[in-house]
């Protein structure tokens, strides 16, 4: 292999970091959104007549839980294309 320059070294580490960022960043939102939807199912099982309200709140709650996942995505895209 040819000699690695300093710039390539930084770019390579940035690519590795992009993968790690998205990988670990997806763990939390995945589990968190699961909790939201799980409790929504439980609530609908108890009060099926309130399903419209519960589904709406579930989607809002999940969207907010998702934000950290989107941060991880943005950071990894910056690491891939900008750095």
């Amino acid at each position, binding site marked *: *292999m040819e000699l*690695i320059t300093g710039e*390539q*070294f930084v*770019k*390579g*580490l940035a*690519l*590795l*970091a*992009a*993968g*790690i*960022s*998205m*990988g*670990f*960043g*997806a*763990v*939390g*939102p*995945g*589990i*968190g*959104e*699961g*909790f*939201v*939807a*799980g*409790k*929504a*199912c*439980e609530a*609908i*099982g*108890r009060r*099926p007549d309130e*399903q419209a309200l*519960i*589904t709406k709140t*579930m*989607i809002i709650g*999940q*969207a907010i839980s*998702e934000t950290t*996942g*989107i941060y*991880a*995505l943005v950071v*990894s*895209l910056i690491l*891939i294309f900008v750095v």
Partner: protein
Amino acid sequence: MDVMMCTVLGAGLAIGLGAIGSAIGEGYIAMNAMGALGRQPGASQKILRLMIIGQAITETAAIFALVMALVLLFGGNGEGTMKAVTYIAAGIAIGFGTIGSGFGAGLPGGSALKGIGRNPQNSDALTVQMIIGQAVTQTSTIFALTVSMILFTLSPELSYLKMAALIGAAFAMGFGAIGPGIGDGIVAKNANEAVGKSPQNMGLLTRTMIIGQAITETTDIYSLVVALILIFVV
């Protein structure tokens, strides 16, 4: 570095890590089957049937990891440093990627058995709900398997950047599949518990469960996108 050494390392990572999730998930199902048997010894046939179906589906994740490990062991005969890196990356992607789904698929199985323990008459509704929930939970494993297969078949040019990108893609997909896998399992677990309590709401619950699981999967799709960008664009 010897390529042979890297295929063996990749296969070890694949099945060693890949067996964790399914093993815990199946244990959780059997544990709840024992609880149900203690409550309803008369319904032992139904309990045993549901336990075996649930455990068989939970096993899927580990079987994917096993397949990938065997493919690496017997099919990994490429040459060069880059091929060696792709083999390790394929092992990391499928190994970590199956932990979440394996554990997640155990959760709905366990709560379906709890439901049978409460009322054995609901066994048909619980079986259907459990199978749907577990099937959707396997999505993240299938993504990981796809990325792992792509990494295995890839033969890139020798470059330091590409090497870092491939290992990065493996981490993105491998770790990225853990959270959504467990999250999907939690959704299906609570939906099954609700079906066990009130089977007449099953249609509504299945719909809500699938919407909830689909939204939970979004982070998994981000991981897949990042992994594919790292593999093909960089």
